[in-house]
């Protein structure tokens, strides 16, 4: 089933690549760097038991783009604490995503994402390979842009005995460029849901993101 979805995504990407039109406004090299805070809310369902954790992470992201191609990097680390009794965890996350803007409003992305959770000295490290489809819209002004991105975890590896059974997610963001300075402010919402252990365990991670960045036009 996972292979069929992967094949479908590759076919869609190829189709869009061949139907791509010139993007006149995206010819040059573009950079963007941002830093900010992430408020994480993790909801875990494990064999009928529910657990909620939340906490702040700090980090940043950067991107570079030339023409239709781009590369986005993101790194953050922080900690989450359970809402009731239980043990908290440190969370570290990073990703490197290649993007191809097939149309002005449509981008295809692919790349690895790593997530480590350290609980009581034990590190659980996930490596996901994700495919993403993103769209964007200018909201009235060219400086106000809304992004929406769906992601599909094509594969997942973990260093423990957990097994990966699929995952998907969503990224939504509103960004606003200041007119006088090459600064932008981003407000985002991320959610991932990972199924493991044959579907008995699901973990949904939400992030409320607030970023301040420098640069124009290369955000991913």
């Amino acid at each position, binding site marked *: 089933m996972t292979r069929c979805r992967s094949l479908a995504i590759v076919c869609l990407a190829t189709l869009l690549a061949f139907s791509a039109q010139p993007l006149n406004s995206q010819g040059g090299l573009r950079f963007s760097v941002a830093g900010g805070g992430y*408020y994480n*809310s993790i*909801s875990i*369902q494990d064999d009928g038991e*529910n657990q*909620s954790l*939340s906490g702040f992470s700090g980090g940043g992201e950067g991107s570079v783009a030339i023409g239709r191609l781009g590369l986005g990097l993101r790194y953050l680390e922080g900690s989450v604490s359970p809402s009731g009794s239980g043990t908290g965890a440190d969370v570290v996350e990073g990703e490197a995503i290649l993007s191809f803007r097939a149309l002005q409003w449509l981008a295809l992305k692919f790349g690895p994402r790593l997530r480590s959770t350290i609980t009581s000295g034990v590190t659980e490290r996930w490596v996901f390979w994700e495919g993403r489809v993103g*769209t*964007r*819209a*200018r*909201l*009235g*002004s060219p400086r*106000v842009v*809304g*992004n*929406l991105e*769906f992601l599909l975890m094509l594969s997942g590896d973990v260093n423990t005995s957990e097994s990966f059974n699929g995952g*998907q*997610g*969503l990224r*939504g*963001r*509103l960004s606003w460029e200041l007119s006088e300075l090459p600064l932008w402010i981003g*407000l*985002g*919402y991320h*959610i991932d*849901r990972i199924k493991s252990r044959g579907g008995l365990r*699901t973990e*949904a991670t*939400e992030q*409320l993101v607030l970023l301040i960045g420098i640069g124009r036009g290369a955000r991913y």
Partner: protein
Amino acid sequence: MTSLRALLLLVAFATATDLLPTSAQSASDLVDQGVRAYDELEFEAAAASLRRALRSDPGEDISIAAYGRALIYLGATEYYRGNPDSTEALFRRLVLFDTRQRPDPLVFEPGVTDIFEAVRRDTKSLTVVVPPRSDFRIEEGTLPVTLYASSFLGTLVEVFDGDSNLVRMVYDGPVSDSLVVTWDGLDSLGAPLNDGDFALTVTSRRPGGVSLRSTTFPLTLNTQRQDTLSHPEPLADSLFLPERTSGGQGFETLVGGLIIGGGVMLVPSIIAPNAELSGSRFFVGSAVSLAGIVGYFARKPGQIITVNVDANRELREQWNDRLTRVINENALRRSSVRIVIEAGPAEIVELRQP
């Protein structure tokens, strides 16, 4: 008998050749010969040489100046030969021929010059001089017409086209001694003329208005013009950006904001159906939707798009600059039209006894 006939023929030939200047002895030589005889007080010989010179065609066989000189010296000769009437007639002929020439008071005694002055006062005559070829630029040069009057005269200078239609009245006024009037080569409306044949006519009049003499110069006019540039094509409507928002742009903003905002708010429940999700998705989703709604009203139909207005203004200004440059260049090219006027020999018609 044969000898007698040959002798008669020889005498006749000698007599005939004596009446006309030979090629070896030109009219100018005869004038010089007459002047020398006059200076040596040999008035008979002077009169004979000068009369022979005056049989020549002025302007062709003899120069105008030499012809006038012959008239002056012959008039003075007749004065000393006791023929003041002949002197008066010769001086009248001189005044009618060329008003510029007169006996020099340093050379001739007052009796001669007095007769000339009396004749000049009584004889209304006008000499017109037009250069045989004039080449000038419009607004920079002119065709000079020089008028020499024997005494106070009214003068009318006009240009006619090949069909005798008046093209331009150049001058209408008095001339007391000499005057230069100019024609700029344009018609009465100030427009350049087409190439062709024209006529410059100078009519002299008594102060009472009676026309005396008409002098007409045939003119051939050729203009050399530079082609003017064509004006730039008007700007096509497709080059202008819309200066006001259309319904489509606002609608796209609204739909984009609502789809993305709705996606952020609704899709997480589908992705994680059983999870206890936070309310942050509604916060972000609402912000995106609200941005779309605000953007819609900011770009609702009829709103002025300042950036496009500025771009269109710049486009129009660039076009106007190009147009101005072309207009200025064309004005320069029009003003640099060269006119070449060639004047033929004057034809003089006496309208009334001067």
